[in-house]
């Protein structure tokens, strides 16, 4: 039994870091722009599909395709910002939230249709040659891909943290998240900061999508599932804490993986129960400031 618990926890960590990474991107966009992107999961799926194509048609290894996927999603993010979100981002904060919810909800209804047209409704997985291999650690096994995925997630969050704290542009992103008026006063181009933040947010979604395509599977309608997971993790962690989001993701991942042993298909309820309990008793989240 203990073996089963530990093995499930290992699996939970690999999926949990992905929950965390998706949440990091979503909370970056919300934290800086005060825009809630409920179509976020669709871009996770898009990243996965792009990597699937790159492997199928150009034989590019999925992990090597990550930079390319990130750049493409960054460009998609920049275009979307310029076309549909720039106007929303210049509104007062309460209006931004309401309007962005409506706009991105519309986007999340539209994109699955586009995905179906381009990639059909078939279940797709990214399956490189090494997809079945695993490593043994003591008595337990961890797949080669989940291990690489965990490492990639950690590197991305670490790099993002470094970018935000150590570079001038990163600091301007942090400053804008705390006071966009103050940011404008000191000479920060807030509009450009929003554009780049939205682009980075979607790039992170795309990167997560590649690994989700490797570990799980992609369908045109699975995006909303990932948006919900990201929202649960953001509520669990509290806003504005990257490592907190990653840890909260891992907690959720382990809880679900272990929950499957006892609850079978109802394990995904665990996340929603967490969601309710946190909102009731600690609305600022586990790692957020009160």
């Amino acid at each position, binding site marked *: 039994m203990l073996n089963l618990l530990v093995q499930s926890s290992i699996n939970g960590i690999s999926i949990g870091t992905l929950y965390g990474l998706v949440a990091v991107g979503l909370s970056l966009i919300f934290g800086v722009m005060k825009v809630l992107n409920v179509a976020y999961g669709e871009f996770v799926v898009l990243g996965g599909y792009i990597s699937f194509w790159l492997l199928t048609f150009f034989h590019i290894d999925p992990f090597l395709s990550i930079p390319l996927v990130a750049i493409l999603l960054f460009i998609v993010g920049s275009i979307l910002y310029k076309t549909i979100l720039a106007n929303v981002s210049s509104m007062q904060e309460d209006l931004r939230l309401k309007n962005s919810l409506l706009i991105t909800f519309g986007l999340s209804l539209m994109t699955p249709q586009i995905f179906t047209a381009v990639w059909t409704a078939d279940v797709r997985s990214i399956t490189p040659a090494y997809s079945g291999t695993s490593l043994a650690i003591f008595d337990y096994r961890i797949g080669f891909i989940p291990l690489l995925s965990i490492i990639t997630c950690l590197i991305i969050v670490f790099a993002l943290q470094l970018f935000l704290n150590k570079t001038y542009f990163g*600091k301007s992103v942090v400053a804008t998240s705390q006071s966009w008026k103050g940011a404008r*006063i000191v000479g920060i181009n807030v509009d450009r900061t929003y554009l780049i933040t939205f682009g980075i947010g979607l790039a992170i979604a795309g990167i997560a999508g590649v690994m989700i395509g490797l570990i799980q599977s992609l369908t045109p309608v699975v995006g909303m599932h990932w948006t919900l997971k990201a929202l649960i993790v953001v509520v669990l962690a509290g806003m504005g804490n990257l490592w907190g989001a990653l840890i909260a993701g891992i907690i959720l991942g382990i809880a679900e993986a272990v929950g499957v042993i006892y609850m079978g298909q109802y394990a995904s309820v665990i996340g929603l129960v967490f969601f309710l309990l946190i909102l009731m008793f600690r609305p600022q989240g586990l790692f957020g400031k009160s």
Partner: protein
Amino acid sequence: MLEIKNIDVYHGDIQAIWDLEVTVQDGEIVALVGANGAGKTTIVETIAGLLKPAEGSIIWDSVCINKLPANKLVDFGISLVPEDKSLFADMSVLENLEMGAFRSASRKQKEKSLEYVYELFPVLKDRAHQRVGTLSGGEQQMVCMGRSLMSKPNLMLLDEPSLGLSPLMVKIIYQALKQANKLGMSILLVEQNVRLALETSNRAYIIENGRCINCGNSSTLLDDEHIKEAYLGKI
């Protein structure tokens, strides 16, 4: 020199400023005084580029600046100290001050500017690593002025710097303001404390309902009957 020529400013459909003319000469302290809702904040936010005038122009050293975005005006040496302070609450005092020198021109002189700000407000040096959100209102006002000074402005737009502060704090803030002015910085001061504003400034504009109803030397305005009656309380 700042010249505001016949500007009209709207908040949505509502006109807040009507045909306003204001000038600030180099090295001058000019006050905008008036009651709540007169439009004083609208005027400074328009100069700072946060609002755009529908009519008229704003000229700074012969350059028309009213079409420029707010973030570009820092490069022209114009800096706003807003009424709501708009500080970066989760950053430390030092980080907030450093953000003031964000533009590359002022970044080069960051250390020197920082020394100057600490000289004006020694308490900020002691609190350099404290989170700004945990400071008192007066200390936050110092950080806000300090952040503005870090950009080495030629014109500082100060919006209600004495609002909600203790008399001692007001004294410290105004001393710093006068000291910065002595070094050549022009100041456009918005103040509800009319006596304080007129005693500090060289010239003043009296704003009522978005229009300038009177202007002139501050010492003359202090003796003006209408001003005494409306703002200073006739004894």
